[in-house]
């Protein structure tokens, strides 16, 4: 505007442009309508929840769209693309973190908004329809939370979703079909992901936007339901209430960012590098239908429903139907009836009490679920030692337990109560073990995915299924550990484990340390070597105990040279710096037909295989695969094999106990050959 007052105000070009659009659209009136809403009794903090929810939803749309542009929904690409977002893309951890934490904030804001609406009686005429719309919006938000949990296709989301979709199958009549439609077929896979993604990013938010527009329009039509009694003068929505709303939004954002960045602050305080894996949203190990996940829990805001199912213990099929369908449905139904109940004289009080009871109940159930899972943290395990001992001694046989307690009913009842408490502690311990295992698996999956070779086309699961460090211990436990121990001899539990084993300890098998023990007269007949096997009295044991302890025939230096030469044959990880001169000396002693070579084939000696295991390439990858495949082969124990099965040999028409890949994984794991991060 010019300084000189003019009788005919000249309008600048911008104002003219604005006039042009206002003439054709009437936008000024719309903006005015939106901002200059009367707020009876002035701006208040209690009115901020609705605006905060809109803000949270817009945040989810922005971050969700960005995540969408980098996400790929299929069983072989979902985890992989989320890994890439979280660990490799610039700002990926931040966007994913905001989306994940804001979703949780939204659930909290929903509860607060609902509480405020009910307490202020904002559901009463003429706002009933808007209250119902709000309840529908709440379910849409919860639906998005539920469907979003699966999308990273990690173990946690996969197993939690299996439970959730199984519960959908309980809906009367249409349940099984409904479940199959949601899952996208009879089994979980590509189409479960594509459907959940379509629900999460398309159908649910689209529906939500439509309902939200009507919700806000009706809110404006009826005006704000002011807190009574009105004591202060009215104000306008803009700017007084907007300022309060903005402060609330910033507070929500600050909490969300705080949750995301807290681990970074902790890392900085501890002086260690910040790992993007600990910022924002967690990413578990890739979903594996064949790998049970004992720590499967829903997101915390659904824990109360999870716990609620346990309440119906002993109700049979009715219990699950009640807990998963009837009671939650009835509660929701009662909430829909609130506007009608509110007409009754005491109706409003009832509605407030009902809402408080539901929220407190959900809070208590959540606390119970957490208390059960974390019971081991504060339990005094020692106090139950006698219970554990009695169960062990009696094999948990009720009659024997009763007899041990002198058939005294009081003592039996007392014991039973304690046994139940112990069981709860052990369940919690199992939960912790499962969580720890899950974290280790997740960490390993991320480490493998970050290799220079990248993830193979078959997906990250293939990466884990071919990783000796992940699979070795599991395969060993399943196929080898009933005879062989795998324990550091220096570990406190070693003695007990070795005594229980019936074959050699394979911890660091092939290393110089292992070979030294084998050639040690004190150890060769012990439980870590041949002590618990049929070879305990064989020539090898007597040769080591008699001949090798005789310093005239074997000097200590010579024995050490053989141990080092054996380790050189094996060449396991960790034994890279063996002295070549000593190896050479040991190889000569090994091949010497007056010494080891009298029984063993080694180097270029002429001893034939058959009597004693081949020392050429001893404990090397090929040697190990050979003996696991078929210990009766002439290179190993054709005559004297002591109970070791041929894991790689198929009987006629059958399949071998272990595949070639699996045997290779066990061999690599025993030899310490697996990918190690930088």
């Amino acid at each position, binding site marked *: 505007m010019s300084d000189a007052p003019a009788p005919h105000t000249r309008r600048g070009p911008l104002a003219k442009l604005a006039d042009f659009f206002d*003439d054709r659209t009437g936008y000024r009136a719309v903006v005015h309508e939106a901002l200059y809403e009367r707020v009876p009794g002035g701006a208040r903090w209690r009115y901020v929840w609705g605006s905060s929810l809109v803000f949270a939803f817009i945040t989810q749309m922005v971050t969700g769209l960005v995540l969408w542009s980098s996400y790929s929904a299929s*069983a*072989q690409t979902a985890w992989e693309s989320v890994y890439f977002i979280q660990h490799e893309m610039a700002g990926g951890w931040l966007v994913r973190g905001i989306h994940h934490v804001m979703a949780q904030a939204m659930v909290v804001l929903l509860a607060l908004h609902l509480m405020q609406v009910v307490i202020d009686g904002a559901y009463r005429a003429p706002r009933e329809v808007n209250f119902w719309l709000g309840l529908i919006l709440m379910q849409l938000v919860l639906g998005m939370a539920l469907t979003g949990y699966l999308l990273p296709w990690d173990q946690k989301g996969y*197993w939690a979703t*299996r*439970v959730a979709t*199984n*519960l959908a*199958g*309980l809906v009367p009549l249409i349940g*099984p*079909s409904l479940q*199959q*439609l949601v*899952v*996208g*077929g*009879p*089994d979980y*896979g*590509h*189409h479960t992901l594509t459907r959940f993604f379509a629900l999460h990013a398309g159908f649910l938010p689209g529906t939500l936007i439509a309902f939200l527009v009507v919700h806000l329009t009706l809110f404006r039509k009826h005006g704000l339901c002011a807190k009574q009694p009105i004591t202060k003068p009215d104000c306008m929505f803009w700017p007084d209430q907007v300022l309060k709303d903005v402060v609330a939004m910033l507070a929500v954002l600050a909490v969300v960012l705080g949750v995301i960045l807290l681990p970074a602050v902790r890392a900085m305080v501890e002086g260690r590098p910040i790992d993007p894996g600990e910022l924002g949203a967690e990413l578990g190990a890739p979903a594996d*239908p*064949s790998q*049970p*996940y*004992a*720590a*499967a829990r829903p997101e915390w805001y659904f824990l109360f429903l*999870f716990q609620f*199912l*346990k309440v*119906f*213990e*002993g109700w*049979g*099929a*009715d*219990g*699950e*139907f009640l807990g*998963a369908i009837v009671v939650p449905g009835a509660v929701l139904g009662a909430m829909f009836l609130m506007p009608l109940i509110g007409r009754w004289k005491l109706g409003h009080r009832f509605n407030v009490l009902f809402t408080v009871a539901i929220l407190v109940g959900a809070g208590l159930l959540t606390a119970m679920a957490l208390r059960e899972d974390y019971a081991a943290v504060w339990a005094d395990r020692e106090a139950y030692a006698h219970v554990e001992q009695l*169960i*062990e001694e009696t*094999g*948990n046989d009720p009659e024997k337990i009763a007899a041990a307690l002198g058939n005294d009913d009081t003592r039996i009842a007392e014991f039973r109560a304690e046994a139940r408490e112990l*069981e709860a502690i052990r*369940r919690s311990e*199992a*939960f912790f073990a*499962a969580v720890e295992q899950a974290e280790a698996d997740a960490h390993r999956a991320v480490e493998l995915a970050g290799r220079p070779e990248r993830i193979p086309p078959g997906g990250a699961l293939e990466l884990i299924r071919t990783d000796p460090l992940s699979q070795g211990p599991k395969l060993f436990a399943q196929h080898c550990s009933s005879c062989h121990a795998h324990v550091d001899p220096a570990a406190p539990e070693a003695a007990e484990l070795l005594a229980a084993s019936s074959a050699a300890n394979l911890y660091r098998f092939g290393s110089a340390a292992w070979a030294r023990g084998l050639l040690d007269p004190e150890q060769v007949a012990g439980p870590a070597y041949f002590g618990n096997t049929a070879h305990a009295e064989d020539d090898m044991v007597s040769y080591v105990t008699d001949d090798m302890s005789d310093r005239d025939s074997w000097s200590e230096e010579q024995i050490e040279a053989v141990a080092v030469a054996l380790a050189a044959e094996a060449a396991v990880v960790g034994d890279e710096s063996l002295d070549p001169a000593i190896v050479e000396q040991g190889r000569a002693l090994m091949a010497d037909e007056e010494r080891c070579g009298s029984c063993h084939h080694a180097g270029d000696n002429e001893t034939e295989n058959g009597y004693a295991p081949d020392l050429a390439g001893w404990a090397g990858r090929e040697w190990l695969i050979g003996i696991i495949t078929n210990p009766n082969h002439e290179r190993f124990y054709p005559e004297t094999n002591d109970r070791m099965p041929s894991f790689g040999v198929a*009987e006629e*028409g*059958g*399949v071998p*106990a272990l595949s070639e890949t699996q045997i290779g994984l066990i061999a690599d794991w025993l030899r310490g050959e697996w990918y190690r991060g930088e």
Partner: protein
Amino acid sequence: MADPAPVPPPADARRSFLTKLMAMVGGGLATLTPVAAGVWMTLDPLRRKSSAASFLPITKLESVPDDGLPRQFPVIADRNDAWTGFAAEPIGAVYLRREQGSDTIEAVSATCPHAGCFIELDKRDRCFRCPCHNSVFTLDGGIVSPSPSPRTMDSLECEVRDGRVAVKWENYYSGIAEKVARP
């Protein structure tokens, strides 16, 4: 701009009923066609059948010790996931159990009949436990009351022929009292 002077609405034509009817039918057809096509495709999963409902080889008889304690074995089969085919993949797990001196095997599915979690064996207490909602089962799969589970563990048909164990692998609906196989 000032609002233009109100123009009187045109007089209702005589044949307006037919016009309205045609507009509604035409509009309905136009919008319902893509909806119907969409519903048709959305219902596709209902006609998909589970790939496995046959006898599958599990292990050798001698791999199941005759001590009455169940052992867990993976169920390996070819599996299709929509367009991807997996050869010899673990599709589930069974517990096999053999009484002392017996040549017959009892097989139960490791999937919990309550909500589908993976049941674990507690060797110490000689029972099965589900880590999700704490259902407990006896070694032969029976219910230990009180239990959230509506039925016993799902037993599977088991054949021992020439020293090899095969199990008829099926998935069952969870959360109901009857054992009903999924199609």
